[in-house]
């Protein structure tokens, strides 16, 4: 590696340096060989770096400067709902009564935590039109797994053998992956020219061997499924279940509810709609809402209220079991709860209205210069295509996305959904101002001009990031997944 490389922490290691402070044992020390069998004792210490506290602080502070975040700038990432993460949530989540509470504290010693979860459940049930909500899933995909396991248990209890799950061709990759993990065969149904699921195609595909349809609504094109009423009738008509991937819930808050649309089960990404911070990839929190016919299958334990007391109910013989230890990503439940208590009913509705207004505004300003595969009023996000630019000078959507970085923004979502060639998906969310949106649109228009006047500049982007374009092929061919340095 070259001299201009940013060091990896082990390269700062100096033998003898320490970054910790622990007291000496205040109990009489026994020789280790008396406490542990000799062949169980570690022979050599792990090759961790030996660095001072300042080394640690400087290293990770510098790393933080090599990162882009919502706190710094705009993330127009379609399907991710990168809205502002309020600082007050960090305060409430860090309260010792929450952060320092052991999960096996007896219920009577954890009433505040159980009450929070119970109230959050009631609030999310109301917002989604569902009857019960579980917080056990650690993320959206984990929620999909939970929801589909419950669907599977539902049919098993009814003695019905159903082997297939239907997904639209625009589905997020976690949907078919989840269906396969639950043992289902995946059937893909195409979208029509308006971006809706093709009703006729669904009618043909749907029969008594299909357990469920997994839909996203608004779908991954950012469009509301106009035929949702018919889709629901077709699936329920043949005894199937409707699953909603709630990734796009931000567009629906207070305007329409999945339960009223006929969904039997859904997951909500609390790290999207309810603004728990993304943390560089996680932790998330996936809440799963269900209609009451699925209640017996909820993962255990379930929080119940008896009089004024909350308790954890494990005695549920038809439960699917557990998908993780303990109860859920509680730290993020505190954040989501704080958010809902802050926004209230009207605040949540304003979120949806403004998110949709913002997206349509950006679409109106961009549509003349970029191909628009589906010309409809969008919801909270929209999909353009970089096909015009590619035809013109061969500059790809990937190139343009890298060039966006030079303008100080994160790139939009690219190459998803798969049904749009050279897809560019943009979602502003309601927390961005008109000024920021205008700056981003201006940047996109400038890049479009660059693809004509100076295509090489775009093709070789990014130019202003800490590293230039990285060789992903080499990373996959010769995987280097850990340092080899001995400290």
């Amino acid at each position: 590696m070259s001299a201009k490389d940013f060091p990896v922490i082990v390269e700062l290691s100096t033998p003898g340096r320490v970054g910790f402070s622990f007291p000496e044992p205040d109990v009489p020390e026994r020789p280790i060989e008396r406490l542990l069998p000799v062949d169980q004792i570690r022979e050599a210490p792990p090759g961790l770096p030996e660095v001072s506290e300042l080394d640690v602080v400087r290293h990770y502070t510098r790393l933080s400067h090599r990162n882009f975040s919502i706190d710094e700038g705009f993330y127009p990432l379609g399907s991710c709902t990168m809205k502002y993460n309020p600082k007050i949530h960090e305060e409430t989540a860090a309260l010792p009564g929450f952060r320092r509470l052991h999960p096996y504290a007896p219920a009577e010693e954890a009433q505040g935590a159980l009450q929070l979860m119970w109230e959050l459940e009631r609030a999310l049930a109301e917002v989604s039109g569902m009857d019960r909500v579980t917080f056990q899933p650690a993320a959206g995909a984990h929620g999909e797994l939970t929801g589909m396991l419950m669907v599977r248990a539902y049919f098993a209890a009814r003695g019905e053998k159903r082997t297939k799950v239907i997904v639209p061709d625009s589905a997020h990759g976690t949907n078919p992956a989840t269906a396969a993990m639950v043992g289902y065969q995946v059937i893909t149904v195409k979208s029509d020219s308006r971006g809706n699921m093709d009703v006729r195609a669904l009618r043909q595909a749907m029969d008594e061997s299909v357990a469920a349809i997994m839909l996203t609504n608004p779908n991954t094109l950012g469009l509301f499924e106009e035929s949702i009423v018919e889709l629901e009738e077709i699936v329920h008509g043949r005894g199937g279940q409707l699953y909603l991937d709630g990734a796009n819930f931000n567009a629906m808050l207070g305007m329409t509810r999945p339960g009223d649309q006929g969904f039997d089960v859904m997951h909500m990404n609390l790290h999207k709609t309810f603004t728990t911070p993304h943390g560089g990839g996680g932790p998330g929190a996936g809440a799963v809402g269900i209609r009451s016919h699925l209640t017996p299958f909820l993962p255990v334990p379930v929080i119940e209220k008896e009089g004024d007391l909350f308790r954890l109910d494990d005695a549920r013989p038809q439960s699917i079991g557990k998908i993780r230890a303990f109860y859920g990503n509680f730290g993020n439940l505190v954040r989501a709860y704080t958010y809902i208590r802050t926004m209230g009913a009207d605040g949540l509705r304003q979120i949806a209205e403004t998110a949709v207004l913002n997206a349509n505004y950006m679409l109106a300003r961009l549509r003349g210069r970029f191909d628009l595969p589906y010309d409809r009023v969008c919801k909270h996000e929209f999909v353009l295509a970089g096909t015009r630019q590619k035809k013109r000078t061969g500059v790809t959507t990937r190139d343009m996305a890298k060039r966006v970085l030079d303008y100080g923004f994160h790139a939009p979502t690219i190459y998803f959904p798969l049904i749009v060639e050279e897809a560019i998906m943009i979602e502003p969310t309601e927390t961005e101002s008109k000024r920021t949106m205008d700056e981003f649109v201006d940047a996109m228009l400038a890049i479009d001009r660059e693809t004509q006047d100076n295509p090489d500049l775009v093709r070789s982007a990014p130019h202003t990031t800490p590293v230039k374009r990285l060789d992903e092929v080499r990373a996959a061919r010769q995987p280097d997944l850990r340092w080899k340095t001995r400290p």
Partner: protein
Amino acid sequence: MTARQKSVDVAARAQHKYIPATDAEREEMLRVIGVPSVDALFADIPAAVRLNRPLRLPPALSDPEVVAHLRALAERNTHCDSAACFLGAGAYDHYVPSVVWALAGRGEFLTAYTPYQAELMQGELQAGYEYQSMLCELTGMDVANASMYDGASATAEAAVMAKDLTKRNEVIVSTAVHPEYRQVLRTYTGPLGITVAEVPHRLGVSDAEAIARAITDHTAAVIIQHPNFFGSLEEGKALADLAHRHGALLVCAIADPLSLGILKPPGAWGADIVAGEGQSLGNHVNFGGPYLGMMATRQEFVRRIPGRLVGATVDTEGRRGFVLTLQTREQHIRRERASSNICTNEALLTLAAAIYMAALGKQGLRKVAGLNLQKAAYAKEAISGLRGYRLAFDAPTFHEFVVRTPVAPEEINRRLRRHQIIGGAPLGRWYPDLKDGWLVCVTEQRTREEIDRLTSALEEIG
């Protein structure tokens, strides 16, 4: 518009600090879009599914009010700062150095997205690479992923990985593995046609003879936990050899990786896949989550490990950089052929773990592990010396051990509250033959004074 809907629209709409659009800006945007009102943008939602009433939620609270409300809820919980915690069982009260969250809580890390645009996110990616490297050092394995959801689900995904690797569909799991890990294992494996055979522990450790009798040519993996749920050390090497003789893999679950500061790592005694819970590495108990699923394996299995992997590479100017790699195993490319469906993971907690491991370093891990071992040994000796109390098992332990109590453990815990002590985990709910079993945990956080206070309180109660 009905009268009711109208009143919702024109009711005083507070300008919210998280929603910057002013009335004037909304007007301007509507004009550019070319529609008369925001309602027009929702016209394609069928009337039958439109919500025509306000959501029934409690009234919105201002910041000071919401903090006061949350504080009141928090104060109704008995937590590890208000009492001495002798409770472990998969979640551990360890000291979290101040640097961990001072750094991990920075907005640049906290509010960042998954690093798909690698050039912009070298901070997150490099921290992931450092975490993967340090986890390999700790566990003695060749490759580690950049996180699963938690220890239990990581163990379940390890079983699925073993099935894919061996093309066999049975797994054996010792009942000395955490009961909730086993429950999650059953939930994950059921739909995939993987049979789980539970082999009862013997005297608090996995029963090698019983496992030898249970193992077949269809066994993909033998799953143990080390130290196990009872705190006892397992004979890992013997069990790994046994598994390998039958063409099966050895999966080692680890509930507290701090134990690896002093115990021989699984890579050194023959484990094929390590799955574990990283909460002890710089994270608080947080009422059970978010936690950190760890997974590590041998080099030959690298293309089958689920979850994200960070790899080193170079940029167009020869600089070292980091990217998410081998992504074709993941759901967003491989879809129904994915190794798993995991997308969002526990990235922030891998950062916290990396900072913790870097701050403690080579010497610190050994030191903190030693403190756990010594304090637990002291408590174990003292408690087993009390009349009416005896140790359930003879096996050597790290920082947890099981005591058989003269009074029901639940009752002991209730009485210990008066001494500001959170007592150990009563085992009767998971192990019917251990109704008087009480799992005590002593970490480096417990002072001699607290341990002595526990001992005298137990003497009083017994």
